[in-house]
């Protein structure tokens, strides 16, 4: 039996009169790498913001490891879930280790402890960016900055990590580097859920793929067969041809 990390039931959300999410039902399995795919404006980021607690919700339920999200306090939630938002830009040239250290802020109120600093050391070691520890964050490349922000989420010691487009703006080297690292994290009983735009990268690395279309999560059925790419054409409104590479399905848009 696979455990469920996050379970969303009948979740609806609207900004004013505009529906953003309608009757979303989805369960992300624990200890694996799940990817959420879908077109711009399909509601992926809003679903993530709600799951991460950045956005309040009125209808439906969101359960983190079996506990209702809206009933958890900020620090309680921080123990369970880490979130990497989409845009991050620092104005001040903080050193990398100081940026990562702020990930412990939910646990140490006024001054970071020795164990906080040790966790920072472990996290940047794990992601292979120890050599950047003393560099100013603002001078790093996009890929390096992304790894720093992932390290910042890791020092929280969460059980679940949500990443909003972690491979956005990265070159192919850093895309594969980041995805390998994320995949590796799931081996240490961590659940990783990411929003991605490239279906091929998702198929290559993810254990599970989820798709959003028209404000809700859709699943492949007999009618829309996942492997015949008709389902993907429905999700993306693009015509695809499929390619099999090492028993992985990849898609290429048809011109």
């Amino acid at each position, binding site marked *: 039996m696979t455990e469920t990390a996050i379970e969303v039931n009948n979740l609806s959300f609207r900004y004013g009169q505009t529906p953003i999410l309608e009757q979303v039902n989805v369960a992300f399995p624990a200890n694996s790498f799940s990817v959420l795919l879908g077109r711009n404006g399909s509601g992926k980021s809003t679903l993530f913001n709600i799951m*991460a*607690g*950045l956005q309040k919700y009125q209808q439906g339920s969101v359960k983190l490891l079996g506990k209702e999200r809206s009933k958890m306090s*900020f*620090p309680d*939630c*921080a*123990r369970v*879930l*880490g*979130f*990497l*938002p989409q*845009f*991050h*830009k*620092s*104005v*001040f*040239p*903080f*050193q990398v280790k*100081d*940026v990562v*250290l*702020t*990930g*412990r*802020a*939910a646990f*140490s*109120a*006024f*001054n*970071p402890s020795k164990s906080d600093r040790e966790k920072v050391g472990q996290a940047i070691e794990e992601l292979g960016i120890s050599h950047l520890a003393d560099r*100013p964050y*603002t001078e790093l490349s996009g890929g390096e900055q992304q790894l720093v922000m992932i390290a*910042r*989420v890791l020092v*929280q010691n969460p059980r679940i990590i949500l990443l909003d487009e972690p491979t956005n703006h990265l070159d192919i080297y850093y895309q594969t580097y980041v995805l390998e690292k994320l995949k590796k994290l799931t081996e240490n009983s961590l659940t990783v859920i990411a929003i991605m735009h490239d279906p091929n990268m998702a198929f290559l690395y993810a254990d599970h793929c989820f798709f959003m279309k028209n404000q809700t999560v859709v699943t492949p059925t007999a009618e829309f067969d996942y492997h015949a790419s008709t389902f993907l054409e429905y999700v993306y409104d693009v015509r695809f041809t499929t390619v099999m590479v090492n028993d992985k399905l990849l898609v290429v848009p048809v011109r």
Partner: protein
Amino acid sequence: MRKVLTGFLIYGLPIPLLLYSLTVGPSQGLVFADYWDWGRAALNGNIQESSTKVYVLNNIIENVRLPRVLLTFIIGAGLASSGGALQGIFRNPLVDPYVLGISSGSAFGAALAIAFPFFHINVMAFVLGVASVVMTYSFAFSNNKSSIVAVILSGMIVSGIFTASLTVVQYMSDPYKLQAIVQWTMGNLHHASWDKVNTAALPVGLGIVGMYLMRWRLNLLALGEQEAKAVGVNPTADKTILVGLATLTTSTSVAAAGVISMYGLFIPHLTRMMVGPDNRKAMPANIFFGGSFLVIIDNFSRSLMDFEIPIGIFTMLLGAPFFLFLMKKNKINWV
């Protein structure tokens, strides 16, 4: 070497500087021997039986220079740490402690009190300084949310309203009161007294200690609201406390010494060049170096010429070139 030098500038400078500053002033004819005599007499506790010269000198030091130097240090420390805190909160290195409208609110309050003497000047300056921050925030909030841009914009508008009101009061005042108002807005440490030190010390001290305790939280806030929430911290509470502390500190210093412009903007930049952007180091640097540097400026302002140059003006004249020099030398690239 560099580390030792910055360490000395920040932590070693204040005490000798404060002592030296007691000997600075326009009283002519005092030589080192007089201070020596005074020091010995003060240590032995027999000022009363000493020569007239020592007695007079004691009076000058005790009732004129000491309160002035202390008040200057307190205000310098308060403005610099508030500036550093607000730059972090608003994630904007262009912000100074007056960004929320405190200075123009206080100036208007003081002008009102000078033109229509119903209330005490310092009380009015403090009350309207706080009121302007409350106004800025209430305008900036909509749907329980406020963006940084909305707060800064709203602060500019509130500043504008109070500056215009100040001009109206100035226009209606008679020349003597007008002179007093203009002098007040230029910053006036020469009115320093034990009374002012006593009223300013507690609120500014409270604000400084609070901001010092929150110095690490400031790093988190400086990364952004989303980034704080992402690691499980609700930044609204932290922000509110820090803005409150900065307002308390700034309003108190404006009420005690008038508007000292730009000081809270450039000292945090100087300390950032010295110890880096980490607020755990920058906040104590703001407090101590901020205090010392204003004392240095004030020493010049009261000894350089026969008359005193208002501290608000002199801060700009002396501080700005120094700041520009460091900015060029350090080649800081703000993105």
